[in-house]
């Protein structure tokens, strides 16, 4: 465990007016780790990943990625460095086909200059991995919910990240669909990508994560393996009250 962490969040704080969304939260993710971030609604999970991906800039604390302080960098710069995210509510490029959606990060998120044909070929590989290859030429605006979620993950993967942030990729899906998305995330993780999973579907987080951090009201209240988290009285209190 002497190697530097993939992501090191140090003492992060974020306020919205008088409301404290995050209060001195620290967490770290190892390279290739499967990491779960959970907490009740309004606990600051989404604020945390917005601060990691750059959509919000934290007021106090540091975000260090692969040994480099990235606090203050713009989202597209962080994507370039290897942080990709999917969105809770799918945000496809609706005028483009599924494959064209992937070609945007394939063209913009990496330094290498590629031809359109190379990008399309690479995009197809990712779509096959994620199980969307048969819909490659369909318009992304008309996809079903589960296919939208898959597209979110595929587009994030097309940025060739070292860290993938999956923001509630399974909310509202059926049991079989949850298992399908979960399987895809395991596949991506096997390729060496560290994954932060933000999720309300507890079964999925517990099954997926090697380590979990629990947020409540902007504070970190617990950290540990899924088993430790389940038996933690503070976590139970946060979710169910006293």
């Amino acid at each position: 465990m002497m190697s530097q962490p993939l992501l090191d969040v140090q003492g992060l704080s974020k306020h919205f007016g008088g409301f404290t969304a995050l209060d001195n939260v620290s967490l770290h993710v190892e390279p290739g780790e499967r990491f779960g971030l959970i907490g009740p609604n309004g606990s600051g999970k989404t604020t945390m990943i917005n601060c990691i991906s750059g959509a919000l800039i934290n007021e106090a604390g540091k975000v260090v990625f692969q040994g480099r302080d990235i606090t203050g960098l713009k989202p597209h710069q962080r994507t370039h460095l290897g942080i990709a995210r999917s969105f809770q509510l799918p945000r496809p490029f609706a005028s483009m086909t599924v494959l064209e959606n992937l070609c945007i990060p394939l063209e913009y998120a990496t330094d290498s200059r590629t031809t359109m044909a190379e990008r399309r070929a690479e995009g197809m590989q990712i779509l096959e991995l994620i199980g969307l290859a048969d819909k490659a030429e369909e318009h992304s605006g008309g996809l079903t919910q589960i296919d939208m979620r898959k597209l979110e993950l595929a587009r994030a993967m097309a940025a060739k990240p070292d860290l993938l942030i999956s923001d509630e990729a399974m909310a509202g899906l059926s049991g079989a669909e949850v298992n399908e998305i979960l399987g895809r995330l395991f596949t991506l993780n096997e390729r060496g990508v560290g994954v932060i999973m933000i999720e309300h579907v507890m079964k999925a987080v517990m099954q997926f994560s090697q380590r979990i951090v629990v947020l409540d009201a902007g504070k970190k209240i617990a950290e540990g393996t899924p088993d430790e988290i389940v038996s933690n009285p503070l976590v139970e209190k946060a979710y169910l009250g006293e």
Partner: protein
Amino acid sequence: MRVASFWPVSAVLFVGVTAATFFVNEYYVVAGYMVLQGLIMATAWNILGGFTGYVNFGSAGFFALGAYTSVVLYTAIDPPLWVVIPAAAIVCGLLGLGAGYLTLRLRGVYFAIATLALAIVLETLMVNWDYVGGATGAFIITPDVPLFASYNAFLFVIMLALAIGSVGLARYLNHSRIGRGLTAIRDDEVAAECAGVPTLRLKLISTTIMGAMMGIAGSLYPYFVTFVEPLSAFNLIVAVNAIAMPMIGGTSSWIGPVIGALLLGSVQEWTKVNISSELNLLIVGVLLVGFVALAPRGILGLAQDFRARLRGPQKKEQGDDEPAAA
């Protein structure tokens, strides 16, 4: 095929139309100039409005600033046109750059309102600036041009070259890396940024090119009408046309504003002479409302739908074959 033939076709068109200016009645040259002016404005508007998804209501402000750049230069040193046109492009490009920074905080309808306000501020400045004639306006005396049929024909030929250049640039943007990034911004700016697209830089490129192009369209206007005052330079019809032409033609591609400008511009010039010069705006309005309500993707959209319908039955057969084969 279409990719390779744009510049040869444009060159032939340029030579042919230039030659025609020596033989036709000057009215056609004047009408043609107005159509080309609309074409450049529409192409410029569409780079921001159609490709990037930011609606500019202040086109008349950019156009008039280009015109007034010419007036200032003419009053000061009367330089040749090859100085005036780039100068107007630079001034209006800088204004476009400034408008680009507005997109940091203003999106959607708020950006549109800000551009409208920008035009009004500029108009107020010009009305109160005596050096450029204030509210009374400024005269420009045009020189003789030996090689051309008339000075208007000379301006028309320059405008034709500028229009071809503008459309060429828009066409290049449409098919380039920048164009693909702009499309991503138009579809979803947040997702584009997270996909690695440097959204601010691309938006600034987009607004700057739009501004410069509109400035170019405006820079020749004082020489064309030889008298500029704020009311005509900041004319509502300029702003409305810049929006209406791309909307009627179709905003998704560079060819849309070209189709819209040629169609709407010609109809306007025809009406001006044959029916009434006041009916112009009414026609634009009715056409715009009609297209927005019935064919929101413009003539291009109608053409695509028509082609899809022609190919429709075949595609279904292919779709049926696939599961059987698999």
